[in-house]
């Protein structure tokens, strides 16, 4: 394109702006030219009439000349588009009811898709804020059934030294810290990590520095890196914070750096706090850490360039089997597992999100079908107008383009309203969302989400307006113009198209409803699972004592016993107990045990595995865990080491199937000295972490035997549990003014949180299914009403020939229900196939649960019947005289 052509196009573009003025000017020019010609003609002797006629003929006609100039003067395509848009807007304004319904329907469909996509984008698509995040893998030990078991530090260092597939491997461990200093002590979540954590992640400090290798030397490790949030909150964003001393767990630490605002490193799985760290301290590596005991750390590694995940896994497997041979006692059956970051973080959310995305896709398809139906109906009503346009010389392409423009105008409006809905919906989604979502970046309507909405809206518009447009453009000119308003129903083919759309709609709705039904049933099951304890009116509160100040068993024991005594006397408290990990905190402690007098399976293998609970004597009363056999600890036993233990039924059933466990002695491998301890009682099973898992073997050890530095108080209240928290905090403060209190939550809340993800899935799918039901009911109602109006004449004849109201009612209902049942049949088949995708989301319900299938099918059929009933009633009111006269 040369400069002249560009100039010409620009002129054309500007020509669009002052079109009216240019047209006027050209009309003037033509007038004057014509006048000149006529004058000349008269001069050569023609009569004035003859002169004018000849001049006009010579010109080639006024209109045509103007049209010719117009084509050159502007951009025809753009002008047509503007014209179409103007006309389309006029049409939409003229039918506000139609416009409102269509726009709302589309907004609902597009909005739901955008909202869900904004979550999908945040969880499954958007890049993590680490350098080359796709080369990062989380490292776990593989232990028995557990694919993601925390790592033993001893193993970690062996792996680090022996591997050659990763560029760096860093270990970390979530901790709760007491941050003191100038202001009141506060419990702050933190992480201790090997000095290379930040370099493996590829993230630098915003202010100051991250860890250096010398920071992990014992004695030089009292430095701390702050998160941006903590820096702002606790230090007011002070730029001179670097070098400041803070009191962390009763030890002076020097602040060396602040991380950027979007930095976050939190692996929920096996986290001992369940919350993102706000400060990082270097892990002081002494020789002691290389002893084989305890598995509790997490690790992240960066694959070397050119090394694939499979290669890395194979290499690590070789290391694992070598280590298993070298240290059979500790590492028999232990492997190494590498999990890509996305898989680790998205985890079980992925499947749920994909199902939800599919569900909103269905909702959008139903919305499309509805709007297409509306447009088809309207196109039938506009046949006359279209025929006139065709008669005036509009080509078929031109008519299709006009109708397509109108359709896109509708989706444009629908998309805009949908975006508003999505903004609101995304906020609602985040509020409802399970805690895992917090591991990702903010859910927001970002540029890629906007792009998605735009594409979806465009596709939607094309999909739902193409069929009606082609239908309409096939108008048979002569017939339509001759017919005088009769038979607006359009041709049978468009009627058939509408029927197909309704069948599809109902089928889609049925699939969604069945999916939602299955989730609801599964959720109800989950909610009704017996936890083994009574969660109502129980307040829980974690307290973690810094080992610096509480360095002796006696001190810890004293603190907890005194606190419990005082809590017991608070007004409204029925029972005050304590345990190391309350159920549904998401954490636990597990170890092997031996049984006195029973041969071990092999010298280096324990007889069994048990969860280890450390409690006081009142804990069972506080949670109302029933005693099944024997007795509980006495107060004496809880305070002094007497070597007694209480087990649960699962442990008794698994390890003492046909004998009385009472009086038997077991020994756990937790803290030396390992002493054989007598079983004095058996209590009921308790779900510890997940409602959908069977109870595990558990043993309850008096706090005097294993004085943990952290415990969770559980207070059973006579009434509402939340009122007592101030009193409890007060007790802790009086006992130790420097001791912060951790999260205070009701047990109900903890249990509820454990099924937040299921609640999220269920609620959303239920909402989408309800929308689908509503839309498809509107759809079948619309089609049936339209067909009744279209068949007024026929119904009139039938009535005149003696058909009574019930005959006519049956006639219409039969047709409507034929469509509905066809949709149900297709939907059932599709549901059989598609619900299989939900298998992992369900608990205690089969993917083809007959009850759900039957109830949902009945529900949908009933709604369809209702939607047909109204137009059918209308049909019976047709007055044969009027119907026949309207011909």
């Amino acid at each position, binding site marked *: 394109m040369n400069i002249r052509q560009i100039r010409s196009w620009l002129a054309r573009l500007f020509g669009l702006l002052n079109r009216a003025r240019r047209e006027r000017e050209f009309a003037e020019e033509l007038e004057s030219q014509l006048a000149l010609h006529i004058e000349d003609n008269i001069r050569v002797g023609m009569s004035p009439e003859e002169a004018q006629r000849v001049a006009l003929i010579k010109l080639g*006609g006024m209109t045509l000349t103007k049209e010719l*100039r117009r084509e050159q003067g502007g951009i025809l395509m753009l002008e047509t588009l503007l014209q179409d848009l103007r006309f389309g807007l006029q049409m939409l304004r003229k039918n506000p009811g139609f416009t409102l319904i269509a726009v709302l329907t589309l907004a609902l469909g597009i909005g739901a898709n955008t909202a869900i996509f904004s979550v999908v984008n945040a969880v499954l698509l958007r890049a993590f804020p680490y350098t080359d995040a796709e080369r990062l893998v989380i490292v776990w030990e593989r232990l028995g059934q557990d694919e993601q078991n925390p790592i033993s530090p001893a193993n970690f260092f062996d792996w680090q030294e022996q591997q050659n597939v990763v560029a760096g491997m860093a270990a970390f461990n979530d901790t709760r810290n007491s941050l003191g200093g100038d202001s009141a002590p506060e419990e702050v979540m933190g992480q201790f990590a090997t000095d290379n954590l930040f370099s493996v992640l590829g993230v630098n400090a915003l202010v100051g520095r991250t860890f250096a290798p010398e920071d992990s030397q014992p004695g030089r490790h009292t430095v701390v890196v702050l998160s941006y949030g903590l820096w702002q909150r606790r230090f007011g964003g002070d730029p001179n914070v670097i070098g400041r001393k803070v009191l962390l767990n009763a030890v002076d630490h020097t602040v060396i750096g602040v991380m950027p605002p979007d930095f976050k490193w939190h692996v929920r799985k096996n986290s001992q706090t369940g919350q993102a760290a706000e400060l990082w301290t270097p892990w002081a590596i002494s020789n002691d850490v290389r002893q084989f005991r305890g598995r509790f750390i997490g690790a992240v590694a960066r694959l070397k360039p050119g090394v694939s995940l499979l290669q890395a896994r194979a290499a690590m497997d070789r290391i694992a089997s070598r280590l298993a041979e070298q240290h059979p006692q500790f590492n028999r059956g232990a492997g190494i597992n590498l999990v890509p970051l996305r898989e680790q973080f998205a985890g079980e959310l992925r499947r749920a999100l994909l199902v939800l995305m599919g569900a909103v896709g269905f909702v959008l398809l139903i919305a499309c079908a509805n709007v297409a139906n509306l447009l088809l109906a309207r196109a039938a009503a506009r046949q006359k107008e279209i025929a006139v346009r065709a008669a005036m010389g509009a080509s078929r392409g031109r008519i299709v383009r006009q109708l397509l423009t109108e359709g896109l105008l509708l989706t444009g409006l629908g998309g805009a309203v949908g975006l508003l809905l999505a903004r609101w919906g995304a906020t609602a989604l985040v509020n409802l969302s399970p805690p895992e979502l917090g591991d990702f970046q903010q859910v927001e309507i970002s540029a890629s989400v906007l792009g998605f909405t735009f594409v979806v809206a465009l596709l939607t518009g094309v999909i739902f307006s193409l069929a009606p447009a082609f239908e309409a453009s096939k108008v048979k000119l002569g017939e339509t113009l001759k017919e005088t308003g009769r038979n607006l129903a359009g041709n049978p083919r468009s009627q058939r198209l509408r029927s197909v759309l309704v069948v599809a709609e109902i089928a889609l709705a049925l699939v969604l409803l069945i999916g939602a039904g299955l989730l609801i049933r599964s959720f109800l099951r989950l909610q009704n699972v017996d936890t083994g304890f009574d969660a109502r009116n129980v307040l829980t509160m974690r307290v973690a004592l810094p080992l610096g100040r509480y360095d002796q068993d006696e001190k810890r024991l004293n603190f907890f016993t005194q606190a419990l005594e005082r809590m017991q006397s608070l007004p409204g408290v029925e029972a005050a107990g304590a345990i190391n990990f309350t159920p549904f905190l998401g954490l636990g402690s597990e170890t092997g045990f031996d049984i006195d007098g029973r041969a071990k399976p092999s010298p280096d293998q324990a007889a069994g595995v048990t969860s280890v609970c450390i409690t006081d004597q009142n804990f069972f009363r506080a949670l109302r865990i029933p005693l099944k056999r024997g007795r509980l600890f006495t107060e004496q036993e809880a305070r002094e080491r007497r070597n007694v233990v209480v087990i649960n039924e699962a442990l008794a059933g698994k390890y003492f199937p046909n004998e009385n466990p009472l009086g038997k002695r077991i020994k756990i491998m937790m803290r030396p000295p390992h002493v054989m301890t007598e079983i004095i009682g058996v209590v009921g099973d308790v779900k510890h972490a997940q409602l959908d898992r069977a109870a595990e073997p558990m043993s309850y050890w008096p706090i005097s035997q294993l004085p943990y530095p952290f415990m969770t108080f559980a207070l059973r209240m006579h009434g509402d549990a939340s009122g007592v928290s101030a009193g409890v905090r007060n007790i802790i403060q009086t006992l130790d003014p420097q001791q912060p209190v951790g999260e205070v939550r009701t047990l109900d809340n903890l249990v509820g949180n454990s099924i937040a993800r299921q609640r999220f899935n269920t609620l959303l799918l239920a909402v989408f299914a309800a929308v689908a039901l509503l839309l498809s009911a509107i759809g079948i109602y619309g089609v049936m009403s339209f067909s009744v109006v279209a068949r007024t004449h026929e119904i009139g004849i039938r009535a005149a020939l003696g058909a009574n109201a019930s005959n006519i009612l049956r006639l219409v209902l039969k047709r409507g229900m034929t469509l509905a049942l066809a949709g149900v049949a297709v939907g059932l088949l599709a549901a059989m196939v598609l619900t299989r995708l939900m298998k992992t989301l369900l608990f205690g319900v089969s993917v083809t649960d007959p009850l759900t299938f039957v109830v949902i099918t009945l529900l949908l059929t009933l709604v369809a019947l209702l939607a047909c009933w109204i137009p059918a009633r209308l049909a019976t009111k047709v007055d044969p005289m009027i119907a026949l006269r309207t011909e």
Partner: protein
Amino acid sequence: MSEKTDVWQGTLALMVLKTLEALGPLHGYGIARRIEQTSENKLAINYGTIYPALVKLEQEGYIASEWGASDNNRKAKYYKLTRAGRKRLAQETRKWETTTAILARFFVPPQES
């Protein structure tokens, strides 16, 4: 747009430019008339077809227009050549001469020596 009309448009544009060069500023009717006369009425055109050509030439900047008065004091729009138009005309003339010269060699029978 077919090839035939393209050729016609190009030729017409050239005729318009040449006419304006010969007669100076002129209105649309005058240009059309002059083209007809020059062709000794062998070229009968609808006067209307001159206008798209004029609009295009103006868009491309080869001619400019302004309102003026005709000989018998009637208001009319006059078109005149711009400098770009003169340059273009000179180019086109040279091109035309070369082309005709080459073609002439094919159509004139060779001289016997």
